[in-house]
């Protein structure tokens, strides 16, 4: 993977996705071309129903495109795999396993072939420590808050040491304060692990705060990439300092302008 072009770590070429529905074919995405560099943080933003999650599922390999090719590290994405870890929107923890066991399941799958049980346990513990959940390790998902569940989901994804971290509105279901806290934690984790991240969001501030690149999708059906905005803010980023940073305001304005002026959402009854 090291000899792949660093600026084209994920390469999406002419991807089109059409779903079969009862009323015939529904074109969800068309002519998507996008590259993600290694270590880059990319967010996909757009109105609900525009196909952000569809695109993320394509990168994850959970679905295959109708047309076009997706490459990751110069290899075609043929199916899901632990090298492209997914943080699901609703965390998708298994309710009958403890937080520790949920993460261990992932660690075991990736590292059991090469490492001892003690090493696997240490990996699980350090992943939980990374998201500040050492104390809740033996609790079941039903016993912890929504924010903690989402953190376990992130710990599970990170514990696999994935090449790419795919996040589908990971903070969408959380309250604003918890969301801000987790965003800050994510910034620190990403800075420490140099992970490549593709994240779906509908939150403009989240996109500007976290991203190197914001990919704005046009409204569906047959959504495509409307604009790509490079966010050139220095890291580490501080949300308080950025709040009255004119450059930050400009980026924010650009995204809002795209979303609400050029792609003003018209709710159609499909």
């Amino acid at each position: 993977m090291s000899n792949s072009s660093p600026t084209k770590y994920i390469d999406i070429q002419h991807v089109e996705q059409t779903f079969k529905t009862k009323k015939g074919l529904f074109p969800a995405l068309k002519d998507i071309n996008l590259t993600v560099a290694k270590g880059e943080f990319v967010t996909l933003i757009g109105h609900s129903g525009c196909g952000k999650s569809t695109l993320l599922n394509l990168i994850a390999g959970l679905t295959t495109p109708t047309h076009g090719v997706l490459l990751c590290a110069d290899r075609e994405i043929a199916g899901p795999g632990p090298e492209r870890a997914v943080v699901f929107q609703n965390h998708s923890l298994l309710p009958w396993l403890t937080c520790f066991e949920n993460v261990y399941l992932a660690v075991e799958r990736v590292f059991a072939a090469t490492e001892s049980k003690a090493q696997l346990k240490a990996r699980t513990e350090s992943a939980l420590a990374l998201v500040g959940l050492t104390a809740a390790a033996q609790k079941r998902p039903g016993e912890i808050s929504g924010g903690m569940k989402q953190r376990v989901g992130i710990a599970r994804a990170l514990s696999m040491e994935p090449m790419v971290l795919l996040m589908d509105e990971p903070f969408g279901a959380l309250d604003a304060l918890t969301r801000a806290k987790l965003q800050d934690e994510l910034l620190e984790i990403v800075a420490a692990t140099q992970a490549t991240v593709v994240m779906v969001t509908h939150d403009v501030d989240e996109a500007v705060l976290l991203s190197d690149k914001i990919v704005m999708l046009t409204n569906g059906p047959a959504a495509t990439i409307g604009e790509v905005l490079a966010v050139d803010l220095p890291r580490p980023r501080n949300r308080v300092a950025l709040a009255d940073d004119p450059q930050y305001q400009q980026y924010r304005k650009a995204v809002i302008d795209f979303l609400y002026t050029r792609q003003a959402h018209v709710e159609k009854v499909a």
Partner: protein
Amino acid sequence: MVSAVFHSPLEAIAPPANSHASPIGKAMSAPHANAPVADTVAPAAVSARPSATSRDFRGFWMAVLPPIMGLACLVLIWQLIASTSNSGIPKPAETWAQAVQVFSDPFYSEGPNDQGIGWNVLASLQRVAIGFGMAALVGIPAGFAIGRFEFLSRMFNPLISLLRPVSPLAWLPIGLLVFKGANPAAIWTIFICSIWPMIINTAVGVQRVPQDYMNVARVLNLSEWKIFTKILFPAVLPYLLTGVRLAVGTAWLVIVAAEMLTGGVGIGFWVWDEWNNLNVSSIIIAIFVIGIVGLMLEFALIKLATLFTFEEVKA
């Protein structure tokens, strides 16, 4: 009357106490929020103790009185029917006397046709256990297979739809023909009637495993064995246990009828035998025994099911 006097002051005090505490509660995290509310309410509760105890009494009576009245109603109607007509139905008191006699020695055995009620119940339970156990052994794996693979589900669904509504007793002659014996035929009947709820519920459970969990399995690339043990089985378990509960209920319904036809030792046969002796109070005792055993089976399985049911975690 006394309770009413104490009642209103408590309610007059409580709301301001609550409204005073709630802004603090909102600012704090959840466990702390309860503390101030509890503190402020506590003094009010102390002053209103008589009211609280009378309310406890009301709860107690609500829990105990209606069921007792229901039973009393049953006994009353029974008594009325037994004493007014010449139907031959024994009065509750006679039945009670008979019951005391029957239960004084439940485990006597004087030949195959004259055994205590304990032996009869145990014999029936044993048949149910064997027939039901075999049905579980076949039905649960079959349910998993049918739920997991669409081809199998399309293959077997018409068969299940066709065979499931058939009365279990219609299978009894087939059992007698094939197994050439009353006891295996009764077990066969239990088997065939208790297998359907287990197959159907297990299959439905497998089909309803949330797609999210299966996506986790796909992203982690879990082996089929890990998928089964870590995701499929725990997710299906509540459905499976519902199937088991329905199956045991049906089996217990059917065994009485099957034993009436096949004879031997068993509660169903006992009912028939006592009918032939025109010993009606024994039949009424048997009805109560069958009901109570069925209730206990159901209760045990509900307890088992709650042990394995996880609160579904939804976003």
